[in-house]
């Protein structure tokens, strides 16, 4: 089965963590259910003890780590097989396209038929290889309002599709996650106690103490990994959306892991609610896509929105102005020609063409994907502005997940979670999802959307870096550096550096995981001290942590030959090209360039403040120690990869990075080259690579010099700078007042409106209901009075009268025989008299 479809290795890698989640959930549930009976019932106690007893054991960690480790092995094997096949696949596809363009009409002559055989053979080979790496099952059949789909209905599928991007992401995510699992075994060992005292929660009886939650932590980690892997695996947007929400809920659970702390529960709420805003945009995008395309499958959407090279009628010879329409979004207007609707291409047109479901390129397949020919050549249109809105909506989702301006506020607060969680969120899973989705949906984005993405990225990277300069909490510095680096990725994607942006996502995953785990090691070694103002001089105490972190710092700063340099340099080159082609957007190059210097400055500031100089706090320094091997081994492994993951040959040319080249050749959408052709020309024309190399390196050097002067040699006192510019310092320390701004603009108005609503509810609605109640009480009272007075009175009256008559008549019954006889006689006489009188009156005498 695996030789037939090696893509299933990746499916297995996805399913392993969810299996681990299910096992841990069951384990925990049984333990929880048995706990109350464990004291009395011997059978229950035996099972309870078998499952770990009252004190949580490290078992769950082994299950989860084994699952994710196996997933890593699966993805690595899958990746190697994929590498072996991807080249052939790529060549075949090109050849096919070439053939079809050269010989569009298959049935003209004998030669054509021969070519036809050739094409069929090629197509067969190609489909066989393609089948290795994709597959799907129908999940639900729906009916779409879109007319084209009447013949087929619309189907929601669950499927997988592996390309170079997802394969590389798989290896990265599973590798980083495995190391984070391993690290967590050491870091979360406090949770192994029967009673854990939380020093940050104060109750009336001192510190809050609770049961250890070791198993729960690893259960959530497993679910988190599954969600992220499923997101990468998916071949359609709907599956991505489901995993997207799962990632959201996992981050909520893990950020709020210490939910007894008010700050942690607030932070998890903030992360979740901020993400909801983004998801609202995502849903809008999904609805537009569903309405107009009737499918969520990436390949189909992209094939229909970008002009294909051939359709059922043959090669497409559209021209937009001077250029061929190939791989472009074709805009135009609807016109009438001889009574028939007619689409006239026009670069400013208000409609965008939706191309038919074109299966011709890959040939009719034996499976479900054969569509009836008449329906297949139906061209439809989508209003261009809706295409923009859909793109912006999807991007808004990514803004939320990847913590971009203006939704970046949740990520620094997410530091309330345990440090391995921060590492997982920041490196491999959550924030990567947003960038991944932008990269995945790239052909769908119009130039307007891409420009928005670039500006959002540029603003984010600068704002976050400026805040990171003044932060003193070691994790907050890293959090803001993540936001800033994510801004770089978005910028890179927006300006056409598709490969650069996603390569930065990969390299960043390694060095950010390293930095976070390093900070975790520092925090663990300093007994949960996170404030850098209490650290300093820790280098002799924790050499491994310090040296590995230095590798991470060098990588993130963009020091030449470290992994971060390759990707960041590429991003800057793309930005440079874009700016040279569109001079009015000069900020898109200036901001990231300046920020590169700022990044170097604050990262070295963090490292110097933590590891060098004099100890600032004697107690912390005295008790600091190096972490156990479960924590240092991941650090060393990550350090090696942080240095060398992006290497290529020759190493001094960033675009020859091996990983980057793989992505560039096999995964980059064709539309990138077409959309950013001018920028590419500008790079070559203005010696982009050389210019960027020298300017960026010198800016990085300046940043390093500043950090050395201020924090290593202490020539200048950083406090002087603080006192010189108190307003700037306060502004940065308060994170550009974003929280306050949102509080004023959104939260307080919402609270005021909520207050009004409550008042309206309690006065008007409740008043109405209460009035109704009072009215009916009053009505019932009078109705009761009527009932008891008049109706009952009438009935009683009848009874009373009969009683009175009866009482009077009983006097007749004297009991004396003689009086009865007298009555009889008198009655007889009376009857006689009456009869006599009656006879006289009626018949005139007896």
């Amino acid at each position, binding site marked *: 089965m695996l030789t037939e479809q090696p893509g299933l290795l990746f499916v297995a890698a996805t399913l392993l963590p969810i299996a681990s989640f299910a096992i841990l959930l069951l384990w925990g549930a049984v333990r929880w259910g048995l706990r109350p009976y464990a004291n009395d019932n011997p059978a229950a106690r035996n099972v309870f003890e078998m499952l770990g007893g009252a004190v949580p054991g490290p078992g769950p960690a082994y299950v989860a780590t084994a699952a994710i480790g196996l997933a890593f092995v699966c993805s690595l094997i899958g990746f190697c097989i994929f590498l072996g096949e991807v080249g052939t696949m790529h060549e075949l596809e090109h050849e096919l396209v070439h053939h079809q363009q050269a010989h569009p009409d298959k049935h003209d002559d004998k030669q054509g038929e021969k070519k036809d055989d050739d094409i069929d053979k090629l197509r067969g080979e190609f489909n066989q290889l393609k089948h290795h790496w994709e597959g799907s099952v129908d999940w639900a059949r729906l009916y779409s309002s879109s007319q084209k789909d009447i013949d087929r209905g619309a189907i929601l599928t669950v499927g997988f599709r592996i390309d170079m991007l997802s394969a590389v992401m798989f290896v990265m995510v599973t590798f980083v996650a495995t190391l984070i699992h391993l690290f967590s075994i050491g870091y979360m060992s406090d949770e192994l106690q029967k009673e854990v005292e939380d020093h940050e929660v104060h109750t009336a009886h001192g510190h809050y103490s609770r049961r250890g939650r070791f198993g729960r932590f690893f259960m959530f980690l497993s679910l988190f990994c599954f969600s992220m892997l499923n997101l990468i695996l998916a071949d359609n947007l709907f599956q991505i959306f489901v995993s997207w929400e799962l990632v959201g809920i996992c981050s909520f659970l893990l950020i709020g892991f210490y939910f007894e702390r008010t700050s942690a529960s607030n932070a998890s709420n903030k992360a979740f609610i901020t993400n909801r805003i983004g998801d609202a945009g995502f849903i809008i995008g999904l609805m537009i896509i569903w309405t107009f395309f009737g499918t969520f499958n990436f390949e189909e959407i992209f094939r229909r929105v970008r002009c294909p090279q051939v359709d059922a009628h043959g090669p497409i010879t559209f021209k937009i102005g001077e250029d061929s329409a190939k791989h472009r979004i074709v805009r135009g207007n609807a016109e009438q020609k001889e009574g028939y609707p007619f689409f006239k291409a026009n670069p400013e047109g208000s409609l965008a063409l939706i191309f038919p479901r074109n299966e011709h390129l890959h040939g009719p397949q034996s499976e479900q994907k054969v569509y009836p020919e008449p329906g297949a050549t139906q061209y439809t249109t989508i209003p261009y502005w809706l295409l923009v809105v859909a793109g912006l909506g999807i991007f808004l989702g990514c803004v939320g997940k990847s913590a971009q301006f203006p939704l970046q506020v949740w990520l620094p607060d997410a530091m309330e979670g345990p440090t391995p969680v921060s590492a997982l969120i920041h490196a491999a899973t959550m924030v990567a999802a947003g960038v991944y989705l932008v990269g995945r949906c790239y052909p769908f984005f119009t130039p307007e959307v891409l420009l928005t993405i670039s500006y959002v990225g540029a603003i984010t990277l600068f704002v976050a870096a400026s805040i990171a300069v003044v932060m003193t909490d070691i994790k907050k510095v890293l959090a803001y550096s993540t936001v800033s680096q994510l801004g770089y990725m978005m910028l890179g994607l927006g300006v056409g550096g598709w490969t650069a942006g996603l390569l930065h996502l990969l390299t960043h995953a390694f060095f950010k995981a390293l930095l976070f785990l390093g900070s975790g090691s520092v925090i663990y070694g300093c007994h949960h001290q996170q404030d850098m103002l209490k650290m300093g001089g820790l280098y002799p105490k924790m050499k491994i942590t310090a040296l590995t972190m230095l590798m991470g710092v060098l990588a993130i700063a963009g020091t030449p030959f470290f992994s971060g340099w390759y990707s960041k340099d590429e991003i800057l080159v793309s930005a440079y090209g874009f700016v040279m082609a569109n001079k009015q957007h000069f900020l898109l190059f200036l901001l990231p360039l300046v920020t590169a210097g700022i990044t170097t400055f604050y990262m070295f500031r963090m490292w110097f403040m933590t590891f060098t100089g004099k100890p600032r706090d004697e107690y912390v320094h005295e008790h600091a120690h190096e972490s156990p091997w479960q924590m240092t081994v991941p650090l060393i492994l990550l350090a090696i990869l942080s240095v060398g993951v992006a290497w290529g040959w020759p190493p001094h040319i960033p675009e020859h990075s091996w990983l980057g080249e793989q992505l560039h050749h096999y995964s980059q959408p064709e539309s990138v080259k077409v959309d950013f052709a001018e920028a590419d020309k500008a790079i070559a024309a203005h010696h982009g690579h050389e210019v960027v190399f020298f300017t960026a390196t010198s800016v990085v050097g300046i940043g390093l010099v500043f950090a050395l002067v201020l924090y290593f040699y202490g020539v200048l006192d950083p406090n002087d700078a603080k006192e010189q510019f108190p307003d700037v310092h306060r502004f940065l320390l308060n994170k550009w007042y974003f929280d306050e701004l949102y509080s004023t603009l959104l939260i307080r108005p919402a609270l005021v409106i909520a207050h009004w609503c409550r008042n309206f509810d309690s006065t008007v609605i409740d008043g109405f209901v209460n009035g109704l109640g009072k009215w009916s009480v009053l009505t019932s009272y009078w109705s009761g009075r009527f009932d008891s007075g008049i109706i009952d009175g009438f009935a009683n009256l009848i009874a009373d009268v009969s009683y009175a008559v009866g009482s009077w*008549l*009983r*006097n*007749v*019954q*004297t*009991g*004396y*025989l*003689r009086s009865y*006889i*007298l009555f009889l*006689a008198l009655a007889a006489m009376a009857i006689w008299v009456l009869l006599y009188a009656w006879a006289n009156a009626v018949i005139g005498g007896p």
Partner: protein
Amino acid sequence: MNPVEQLNLYLALGALLFVCGVVCMATKRNAIGVLIGVELVLNGANINFVAFSRFHPNFQVEGMIFALFVIVMAAGEAAVALAIVLNFYNNHTTVDVDTAEELKG
């Protein structure tokens, strides 16, 4: 004297006997006296039956048969009534009908 006048004389005798019986029943306190009144009433009625059987062609047989019925019934009545009187005497040591008032309403 024509038959109708003769019949009227008999009927007058029957009415006299009937009224005497009723007065006797209404005035006597002694239970035996009351029974005697009853006998008088029955015999007053009997005289009527017999008189009609003699003077009315339609009632020649019926009158006599009804008279015989009344005699038989009077005998039965006397037997039952005397038994009640005896029992009453056993319970109350008197035959005064005014003391028997327990059935009053």
